[in-house]
């Protein structure tokens, strides 16, 4: 029975989603039009409708025209709220930032921006119902909409709900938008002993470099830390720096993901992610080997992104 119920729910949700998709094709920027704005009475709106019915009955039973007048007035207010709610959402263009990244189990803050020609009031956005909706500041119509991400990977942005209770809170005027954006979820960085050791190690190497005994003449680009200041005072014409020719270029670190699956793989990926971030922080070149694939050692933000994306897709 329970199983059947769940299946039925699933089926309905699928139908609903496909219906929504049919109404609104995927796009980078969506302008809210009549076709994709849905207006439903809120809970308070239903109570309000009950009030209207009760007032009509009260007016009828007491044969009191003034109560009837009042109930009709509230009816026209209801209709007014309906149109104002629709107008409030009408003609808004919704878009968001192109590249979005986050680490798993983190909250991804998606910058959503709304563009309108008119003043709009009290518009809220959210991705999932459980999430606290973000209220758009009225001045610039921008909001950071939180999105909780669980699994690593490359995902399309879920349905963004833009909604408003304006005016009177009687109607929930909303639009569920499918925006053509994707976001990356990288594995959660997990500190591990080996990674710490690695980081420690590379730190030592740097310290070794301080025990320089030879000097060479200053070349543009040399660190001022290595400048021999005392000597410079004596001979300002020829600045020299400490120099250790025996120290080799730091050996590139290869981060290898073992050929495991399941929880072990996730653990390995998390550790690798942490290590990568540590190395990047210290500007040490690193390469990545995942089974058949390998990325040659390098350094820098772009390289990090590339490696992290490989981890996410692994």
């Amino acid at each position: 029975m329970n199983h059947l119920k769940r299946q039925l729910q699933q089926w309905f949700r699928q139908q609903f989603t496909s219906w929504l998709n049919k109404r609104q094709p995927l796009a980078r920027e969506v302008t809210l039009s009549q076709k994709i704005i849905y207006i439903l009475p809120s809970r308070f709106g239903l109570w309000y409708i009950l009030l209207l019915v009760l007032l009509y009955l009260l007016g009828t039973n007491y044969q009191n025209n003034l109560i009837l007048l009042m109930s009709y007035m509230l009816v026209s207010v209801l209709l007014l709220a309906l149109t104002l709610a629709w107008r409030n959402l009408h003609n808004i263009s919704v878009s968001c930032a192109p590249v979005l990244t986050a680490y798993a189990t983190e909250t991804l803050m998606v910058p959503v921006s709304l563009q309108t020609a008119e003043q709009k009031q009290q518009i809220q956005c959210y991705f999932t119902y459980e999430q606290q909706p973000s209220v758009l500041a009225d001045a610039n119509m921008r909001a950071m909409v939180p999105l909780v991400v669980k699994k690593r990977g490359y995902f399309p942005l879920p349905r963004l709900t833009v909604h408003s209770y304006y005016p009177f809170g009687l109607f929930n005027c909303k639009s569920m938008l499918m925006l053509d954006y994707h976001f990356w979820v990288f594995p959660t960085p997990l500190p591990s002993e080996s990674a710490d050791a690695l980081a420690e190690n590379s730190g030592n190497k740097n310290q070794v470099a301080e025990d320089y005994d030879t000097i060479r003449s200053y070349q543009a680009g040399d660190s001022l830390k290595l400048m021999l200041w005392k000597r410079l005072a004596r001979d300002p014409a020829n600045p020299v720096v400490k120099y250790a020719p025996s120290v080799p270029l730091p050996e590139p670190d290869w981060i290898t993901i073992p050929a495991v699956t399941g929880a072990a793989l996730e653990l390995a990926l998390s550790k690798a992610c942490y290590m990568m971030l540590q190395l990047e922080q210290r500007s040490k070149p690193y390469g990545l080997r995942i089974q058949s694939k390998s990325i040659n050692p390098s350094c820098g933000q772009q390289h990090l992104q590339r490696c992290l994306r490989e981890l996410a897709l692994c």
Partner: protein
Amino acid sequence: MLVLLSRQAIISFTIILLAIIGLLHQALPLWYSAILLLLLAYRWPLQRSGSKVNKLKRVNIIAALILLLLLISLKQSGIFHFMLQILLLSAVSRMMLIRQRHDSHQLLWVLYFLLACCFIFYQSILLSLLILGLLLFTLFQHYQLYASKQLRLQWLQLGKALLLTFPIWISLFLLFPRLQPLWRIPTAESAITGLADSLDPGSIENLVQSDKLAFRAIFSGPLPARQQLYWRAKVYEDFDGRSWTVNQRFESRQAAIPQITENSRSEQVDYQIITEVSNQRSVFALGIPLQSTNTVRPVAAYLVEAQRPVSQRLSYQVSSDLSAIPEDHATEQRLNIRTVNANPKTRALATELADRTQSTAELIGQISELFRQQPYFYSLNPPRLGENSIDAFLFDSRSGFCSHYASATAVLLREAGVPARVVGGYQGGVWHEEQQYLEVRQREAHAWVEYFDNGAWQRFDPTAVIAPERVLAGLDAVLSMEEQDQLQANWRRFSAINYINQQLLHLDYYWSVWVLGFDDSQQYNIWQQLKAISKLLAILGGFIVLMITVWWYLKYQRQPAKFPPPVRLVRRYLGKQIQHKPAGQHFSQFIYQLKNYNPLHATLLEKIDALYQRALFANDHKALLQLKQHLKKNTKILNRLNWPQ
């Protein structure tokens, strides 16, 4: 989502609640109002400190205790008042705890309901407008809850929106189907006004001291003669030697409802009556009510009564036949010939008169003669009468008001063997020519006699014999100066206050007729009229639709939508000049040329060009907005730009 209420909102809600408590004071015992005000006052210190929140538990306990008190006093207040009290209690306790927007939903709901209930107590135009104002204030507060605080309120837009709702509102009122009352509803118990169920020798004198309105009558035909305007309200058939009371047959609701026979149509009068609140069932009609709207129904003795005690203004339509009232029940004659063993002198007189006369008509003539020839006086302040009141009046004091004469005549007739009864109601009224309605006040209260003769109940008004002016010209005509002063009518008539008062009464009259008195029959008429002009309406509607289509076509088809918005904007505002732009020319070049022709407006044109470029090529929304503003602001200048022929 947690949205805290602003202090201003809480203050406004408190003001509304206080006003409602004030308006509903009739339904609230004094102690209860005091408790409600105390509870509201309790809210204030909390608001000022801002940190402490009232504990839900504490409020619940207080509310439960008050509820207990209310339940104890349920019998006194009645079920309707009890409902109002509970609603107020819930509103006030919600008010004590209110902090965030979500809490205000229940409060608003109850406030709307209570405001509607205020209309049950008040229907006069001034108070109705006050309540309507309160309702609008509540709606405004409601709107403010969900509007952005940063934005300034767009009054113009809001006004436009309200203007749009107005036709919907009015047409709903005029056209939405009305139902008959669906079930019996509890009514509030209040003091009754108007004629009571018993008629003492002094009761009518007390009633005429009041200047209050009893009812208004609107005739669809010409106004009948004043001598015909005997508004019957009650029939007194039981006499105990001193005072008259209404017989029990009127108590039972299943009283024999008289069969109305269609007879002489010549004397039929159609009229509408709008009665004021009396908290009684009995309402007013002339002669034999032939048919009436279903808010009232015929009862025994050809009277009419409302379906429920009149606790708010009631409007009904009656057609009456002004001839004598037929007998409605076989026992009616026997009922009205009963005599009591009192007033021996009167009995002797009656026997003497009966012996002297052959027919009932002659007897009536003799009684009239008696009143006319003997020194009888019509007075608002007759002396107090003893146990045998009729004897004391007829033979000692000889001065009395209409009830004295009516009751003495009825007793004389009964003792002489003629069935007779006293009828209470109103006589005459003040006719307002301009507004075309008859205003009947409590001071028009009157009593007269009906006796049975020629198979029907004939009317005999002894007052008309003593003081014919009372019937022909109204009460003031027969009273002495002192008595008029007593009624406070004279000085009022000439003061400005009275003038304003009278104008307000007229306004109130129109209010009653058009708003309060609007009922399903009038609605039916409107539908009929609409149906009659339905073809015209259809043509008009078709024409409007056609116009809109043409307008739309002209607006959008001339400029195909393939142009982006900035281009459309520029085309609209620079339409005259842009005709001269060759097809291949760039907009900037065109502007450059235009600048040369109009060096005065160079800066403006440059600005427009810059905004245009940004809006078109950088898809900058802000620039588009600014462009629109600039173009709109300088429409006149742009129209007058030169372009050499």
